């Protein structure tokens, strides 16, 4: 692999001076091939979602006449309207909780001194290594228990879907890194003005932390929207089933109706795609940030 890379590298580097840029052409060819590989499955999904059943199971590449009805049918067959509302509610509660709880914890780690700070931070980061599979069973027992003894049900209800995700180690870590970079002079001058930690956090730190907070909102949104295993465990009726688990159930029901499957997939993907294109810059920067510092 390495020799391959260096060959292309050398070609592009040395051909800068020459008139014909073979290396440059090759670069674009490779990059565009990558684009094709990424985009074709999406195009195929859209195309298939507009086909008739015969076309979808046959050899057709494009639908003869777009069947917009497929979307209506998928929407009604799979109760997507319910899943949609569920996912929006679940996502909003989760992200809202994350914003409050993670900000508080991250601020404490970044700006305050207290006994056992390092121990707690290590404990926090150690949860990142745990496989989800380890958490399924204990957490499932815990939420059933909490539902039995508490005033509201947890399973098949919003608490089981949201509360366990309201604080995440990665979000706290990301925010802490940002808060720690804020110049100390700001804190000093705030103190002179008589502000305590709470006022400093609300009036100084939060307004300048829009970028990392936005990253957390986006990640929280994606996490809640894409979750599959845990929602499958804690919802066995459509009543509170969020969209990914709903789509999974629909895929199993729809059988060979590929056009409906693809219409359902388009419906599931669209909100995330819109979010991605609107906040695109935030996105890649946030990712690069977690990667570099992690």
């Amino acid at each position, binding site marked *: 692999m390495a020799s391959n890379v260096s060959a292309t590298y050398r070609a592009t580097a040395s051909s800068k001076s020459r008139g014909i840029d073979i290396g440059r052409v090759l670069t674009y060819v*490779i990059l565009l091939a990558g684009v094709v590989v990424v985009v074709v499955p999406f195009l195929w999904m859209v195309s298939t979602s507009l086909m008739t059943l015969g076309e979808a199971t046959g*050899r057709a590449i494009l639908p003869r006449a777009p069947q917009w009805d497929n979307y209506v049918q998928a929407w009604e067959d799979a109760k997507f309207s319910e899943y949609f509302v569920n996912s929006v509610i679940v996502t909003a509660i989760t992200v809202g909780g994350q914003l409050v709880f993670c900000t508080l914890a991250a601020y404490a780690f970044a700006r305050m001194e207290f006994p056992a700070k390092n121990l707690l931070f290590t404990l926090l980061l150690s949860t990142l290594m745990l496989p989800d599979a380890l958490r399924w069973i204990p957490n499932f027992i815990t939420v059933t228990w909490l539902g039995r003894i508490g005033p509201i049900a947890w399973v098949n209800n919003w608490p089981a879907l949201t*509360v366990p995700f309201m604080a995440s180690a990665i979000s706290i870590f990301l925010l802490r890194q940002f808060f720690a970079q804020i110049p100390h002079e700001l804190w000093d001058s705030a103190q002179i003005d008589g502000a305590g930690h709470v006022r400093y956090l609300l009036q100084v730190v939060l307004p300048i932390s829009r970028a990392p907070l936005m990253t957390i909102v986006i990640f929280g949104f994606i996490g809640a929207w894409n979750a599959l*295993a845990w929602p499958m465990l804690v919802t066995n009726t459509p009543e509170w089933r969020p969209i990914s688990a709903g789509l999974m159930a629909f895929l199993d029901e729809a059988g060979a109706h590929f056009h409906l499957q693809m219409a359902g997939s388009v419906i599931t993907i669209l909100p995330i795609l819109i979010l991605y294109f609107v906040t695109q810059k935030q996105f890649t920067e946030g990712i690069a940030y977690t990667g570099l510092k992690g």
Partner: protein
Amino acid sequence: MAIVHQRTTPTPRPSMFTGRRWRRLKEALTAYFFLLPAFLIIGVFGLFPIGFAAYVSLHRWRIVPGRYRGLANYVKAIDNLAYVVAFWLVVIFLVLAIRALLQARRTAREHEDRPWLWMVPAVVTAGGLVQFVRFCVYLLPEVLDIGQKVKGLERTRELFLRLLGEAWGAPTVQWALRLSLLILALGLGLAFVVHRFLTHSPRNATYYTSFVLIFLLVGGGLILGWLTWTEIQAAYAEALAEGEQLEIWSQVVTISAGFVLLLIAWWVWHSASHRPTMAATLLRLGAAAVLMVGAWVLIGELPRVISAGDENWWKSLQVTVYYSAGTVPFQLGISLILAILLFQNIRAKGFFRVVYFLPYITPPVAAAAIFRVLFSGRPNAPINNLIGLLGAEPLLWLDEPDGIFQMIAGSGVTLPGWAAGPSLALAVIIIYNVWTYVGYDTVIFLAGLGSIPGELYEAAQIDGAGGGAQFRHITLPLLSPTIYFLTLMAVIGTFKAFNHVWVLRSGAALGTTDTASVAIFQEFFRNTRYGYASSLAIVLLGLVLVLTVINNRIAQERVFYG
């Protein structure tokens, strides 16, 4: 902890002293208040599950808790290897304890401290902590039982509080609690006495905590060792009663010996690099010989143990290893190429980045649904049409349980199971995984490339280094932390993978795509064997930990942190 802070503040004026102390206390209290909600959630749903899963894994537990059955779940999963692992865990605990002890001695020598008196409060405190764990183990089933008791009754606050009170007031629970608190108080009291009157060193807190840790390691090792020992004895007694032959001990010895030989071989090989050529060659020859003997011992013994364990579980581990080994090199190689190409001065950089990143954010269920259609096994499926254009026969893709090497070799040759390679169905999942994560890796590689100072390349160019040399001597070493990070993430990611595997698995592939997580999910969700599934999850956690440690080891030697 609070004891330590007392000494560090000089006391010019008493009022100043109390003011600062009060401020510090206030800040600490505010901080704990800030941390409380996050740690409540992470504690209950992130940290507590580790211990709880271990607890569940020691029981027969089908939806409702059953009786204690020791290591039986583990033995069912990986047969006698469970005893071998337990034995080695004991050894590792003791080795870690000795290392911490040596470290403490070195610090003490450097500063001419005499910390050995700290052993007394430390051993008492460690004992108190172990007692506290025992209290938790007594309390847990009582509390869990409340969930069963309120079934069918009207759930009122009073009822719950009464039941909680009953659980809390159970005599065993109360005794364990009192005993642990008493011992802990005694330990802290002794620590205070030692700190105040007997030794005066600014490192007192360090000695105290490291000695507590040492005693906890020793204690944990002894408890685990005792558990394993009694289990093995019981197994032998049972076998004797039934007139069977058992070979636990011989297997523990042979397998351990095999691994020790491998370790020695690695160590000898490693030490050869600092020797003169002649000696190094001899040492390496010796290492190779030891390696072969060790491998021979393991090859002779391990398959027998494995075949006695849970066949499904071993198969899923094999699938996971194939999956990881098939994914990681391609994923990192392709994304490195793309990142290097993108890093040059080209047009539409932003466009490429946006597009490459697309699969990563797509909901995995939906993206996998697309792949399910594309790579479906129908002769009419899109990919089959595509390879049909190239003149190839249609394949079964996601429904194909045969290994890809077996398919390449043709039906004339029959390869043994492990050499047949990942099934074609798993290969499709590998393709999906690469497709999804290349964009993520590319973005992170780009950030890594961006942090390499440009002057280095300029200097290299003046020295006459070509593109290849620049890549080898500047880009790769300076990018190594990023490469290390991404490798670790990719390996751990494949070991945790669930969502897309779940969508892409098909019954026709005969379980050749069921990774470890899928196997655990099935045991838990479909078979409702909570105890057994927990033991599998703990084994998976152990594997992830081992992989992380190995990755760290490699990183220490190969990664260049500017």
